[in-house]
């Protein structure tokens, strides 16, 4: 295993390292950090003065006086020498604090995350550690530590470990339930091997990032304590120097400035370097989706007939290289009032993007390159969000694919439906409530009052889909857009939901744009069908025509892929008790 993973791991790390090297923020901060640390290491070479040697001749001496490049402090000690030795104190603090936190946190996180039985123990221990108010405890324990900064930092490392533990444990929990870990277990890998090979790599990135911040906070706390005067006065430290400089601020402000500058450079570079590390290791950061609708060109031209007329619609997304990649290319379709059109295609065909464009809810990074979407003759592309809001719920409504994730988990079913009804119709609260209850009953929910009061997680998937349908048809829209409305449901529930959609369509005289990949669903409810492939519509026709005599090769290929009703597997089991001639041994 080592033989095969090592080079490949190296490749991955190299690419992260290369990203880091290209990032000026990382390069500059890392160089500054390195410079500071090296200055500290070279302290014996760069100065001949002992940082604690007080010379009466050099009390508050100015910069540059014989061998005191930065002058002397109020005890007559060499500021340059103290500065260099303070760097070493900070470096050692960072190393002790971070490494103790990492060793404890990562090992406990791996164990606690992977073994369910041990987790309650580790959780308890770390929530206990987390309860200690850090700085306060370090101060309280002063009689014990004698204020020695190494012991103090070791304790601080323990106090920092819960953070590392949580990061590690969360990563492990996330990976542990992945199917590839199950597959590894089925392949006969031992727990230790699974941890090393499959789990540890997931933990590495976040832990490296955390290390930068652990170092930063260790240095910050050490200097804070030294500022307060914790610990022997003989330990040179930025905190102690700042404290003295602070008291001498009026007399010679530079005594305060020097240690502050170096400490500030140290901590800010660590924070900035940590952020650069995060960008490099986690790839591009999650970008906000935003709420505003994408800009679109206002199309002109004669209004075509039909309730919904989409013409030459082209949608593209920016690629990492900055170019636009089309996901929908020149789609045109027409939907008459009361008609059901099936928009059929495989994954990536652009059918959902087309539906979202009609609703005006494309993600903000999407670009509508050209085209026109008219509802009852009115152009929708280019409308302001507030104008679209007036149409949504009343003229166009939407039934999504995944029932559970489309309900807000924090609100009762009733509250979110009432909010929609009020937004779309301006009804009073009581009126909206009455309407929602009637709707819930209409969509076949046995106890509407109870469903009204329920939270989404308290109802079944089929029930949730009925709720979403109720929400969509609440204000009798002229056009209902249903995006794979039954894909997430069991077939028995699917049949009932399709029945409901069919009935509601007739009752309310709605047109339905049904996005689906399932020809069975199309055959059940659609009047006409449009087949999409890689962003284009390849064929449109009545359901009878598409199923009976499709013209386009792609449509025929799709229809041929359907497992037909009558073929049963014919060949008998091959009795091969020794597969591939291998003798079975236990």
């Amino acid at each position, binding site marked *: 295993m080592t033989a095969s993973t090592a080079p490949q791991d190296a490749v991955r790390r190299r690419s992260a390292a290369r990203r880091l090297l290209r990032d000026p923020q990382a390069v500059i901060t890392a160089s500054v950090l390195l410079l500071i640390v090296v200055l500290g290491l070279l302290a014996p070479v760069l100065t001949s003065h002992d940082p604690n040697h007080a010379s009466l001749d050099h009390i508050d001496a100015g910069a540059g006086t014989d061998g005191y490049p930065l002058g002397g402090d109020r005890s007559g000690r060499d500021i340059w020498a103290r500065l260099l030795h303070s760097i070493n104190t900070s470096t050692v603090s960072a190393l002790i604090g971070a490494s103790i936190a990492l060793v404890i946190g990562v090992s406990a996180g791996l164990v606690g995350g992977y073994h369910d039985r041990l987790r309650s123990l580790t959780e308890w221990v770390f929530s*206990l550690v*987390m*309860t*200690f*108010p850090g*700085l*306060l*405890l370090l*101060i*309280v*324990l*002063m*009689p*014990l530590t004698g204020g020695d900064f190494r012991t103090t930092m070791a304790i601080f490392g323990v106090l920092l470990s819960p953070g590392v533990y949580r990061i590690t444990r969360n990563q492990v929990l996330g990976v542990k339930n992945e199917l590839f870990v199950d597959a590894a277990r089925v392949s006969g890998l031992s727990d230790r091997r699974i941890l090393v090979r499959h789990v540890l790599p997931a933990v590495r990135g976040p832990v490296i990032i955390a290390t930068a911040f652990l170092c930063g906070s260790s240095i*910050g706390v050490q200097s*804070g304590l030294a*500022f*307060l005067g914790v610990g022997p006065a003989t330990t040179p430290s930025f905190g102690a120097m*700042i404290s003295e400089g602070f008291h001498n*601020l009026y007399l010679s402000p530079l005594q*305060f400035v020097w240690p502050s500058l170096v*400490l*500030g450079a140290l*901590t*800010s570079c660590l924070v*900035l370097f940590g*952020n650069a590390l995060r960008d490099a290791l986690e790839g591009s950061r*999650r*970008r*906000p*989706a*935003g*709420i*505003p609708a994408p800009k679109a060109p206002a199309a002109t031209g004669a209004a075509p007939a039909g309730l919904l007329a989409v013409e030459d619609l082209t949608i593209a997304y920016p690629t990492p290289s900055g170019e636009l990649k089309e996901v929908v290319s020149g789609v045109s379709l027409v939907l008459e009032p009361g008609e059901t059109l099936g928009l059929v295609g495989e994954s990536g065909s652009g059918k959902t993007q087309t539906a979202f464009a009609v*609703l005006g*809810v494309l993600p903000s990074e999407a670009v509508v390159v050209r085209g026109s979407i008219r509802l009852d003759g009115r152009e929708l592309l280019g409308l302001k*969000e507030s104008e679209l*809001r007036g*149409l*949504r*719920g009343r003229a*166009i409504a*939407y039934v*999504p694919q*995944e029932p559970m*994730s*489309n309900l*807000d*988990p*924090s*609100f009762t079913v009733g509250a*979110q439906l009432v*909010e*929609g009804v009020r*937004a*779309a119709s301006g009804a009073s609260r009581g009126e909206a409530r009455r309407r929602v209850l009637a709707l819930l009953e209409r969509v076949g929910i046995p106890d509407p009052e109870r469903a009204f009061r329920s*939270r989404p997680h308290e109802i079944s998937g089929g029930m949730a889909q009925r709720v*979403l349908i109720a*929400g*969509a048809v609440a204000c009798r829209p002229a056009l209902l857009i249903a995006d794979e409305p039954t894909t997430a449901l069991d077939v028995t529930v699917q049949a009932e939901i399709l029945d409901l959609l069919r009935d509601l369509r007739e009752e309310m005289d709605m047109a339905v744009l049904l996005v689906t990949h399932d020809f069975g669903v199309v055959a059940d409810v659609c009047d006409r069908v449009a087949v999409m492939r890689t962003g284009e519509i390849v064929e449109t026709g009545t359901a009878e025509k598409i199923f009976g005599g499709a013209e386009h090769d792609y449509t025929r290929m799709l229809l041929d892929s359907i497992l037909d009703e009558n073929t049963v597997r014919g060949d008998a089991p091959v009795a091969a008790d020794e597969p591939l001639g291998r003798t079975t041994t236990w």
Partner: protein
Amino acid sequence: MLLYVLRRLGTGLVLAVLVTLITFLLLAPSFDGIAGNRLGPAATPEAVRALKAELGFDRPLPVQYLDWLVHAARGDLGTSLFTGEPVAHTILQRFGVTMSIVVVALLVTVVISVALGVLAASRGGAVDRVAQGASLAGNLFPSLLLAIVLVYVLSVRGDLLPATGFTPLSADPLRWAGSITIPVIALVATGIAGLTAQVRGTMVDELRKDYVRTLRTRGLSARSVVLRHALRNAAGPALTVLSFEFISMLGGALVIESIFAIAGFGGYAFESSLQGDVPAIMGITLFAVLLVVTVNLAVDLVNGWLNPKARIF
């Protein structure tokens, strides 16, 4: 619900006993030195022994701890070895000072972080970069440095705000506000980055969720979708971060109090442990643990109210 609260408070008490016991055991080796401290360097070994007997330090450790625990359970935390004042009284008095700084700092942090995080997540682009940069800026330097620089600029040079001291709110609200401004700014600056990043991150995730799109298609305004729905779902993790920040601000307040010569909780802890004032140290530890337990419980309760699915009671 009530049962849950009682159970949590119960485990909190167990925790308090445990932490104070550990503290006590860690302090025990230095009892000799403490008695010596109080008598000064000229004390004879006999005098030290006599004082130890007087303070009860010569009793077996379990007896000493149990004795302290029994008294503490009755609300009696003993008297300070050095000032002779009742510990409980001093803690409460000093704590009020610290809390009036920390609570204000926490509120300001919440308001700024939520505003920045929500703006960054819902607007994206330049707004996102500016908000992230602003929240990061405060985290670059230790609050110690920031506070000193602010003192120098606003008090020493600008003479706008008092450089030292604390005026109680009850005495003069305006002067109180003046006296806590710089300490609050210093604390807020270091707290904002973490909370803003958390709010932004969870808001980005929430706004990408399906229910946000569905609510929009029902004609809800963007403001209602973002603030009423997405923010409420994003609040849970942010609250957890907030409870950590509360604890770290308590720590940060120690340093700040020292800079401004404010006689707060941190200063009391510092003086007590410098002197080895055992009853005071024990009282402070107990109080701090109970405080953290209460805050964590409150956070979990609010979380459960916000997100019923995650309710653990």
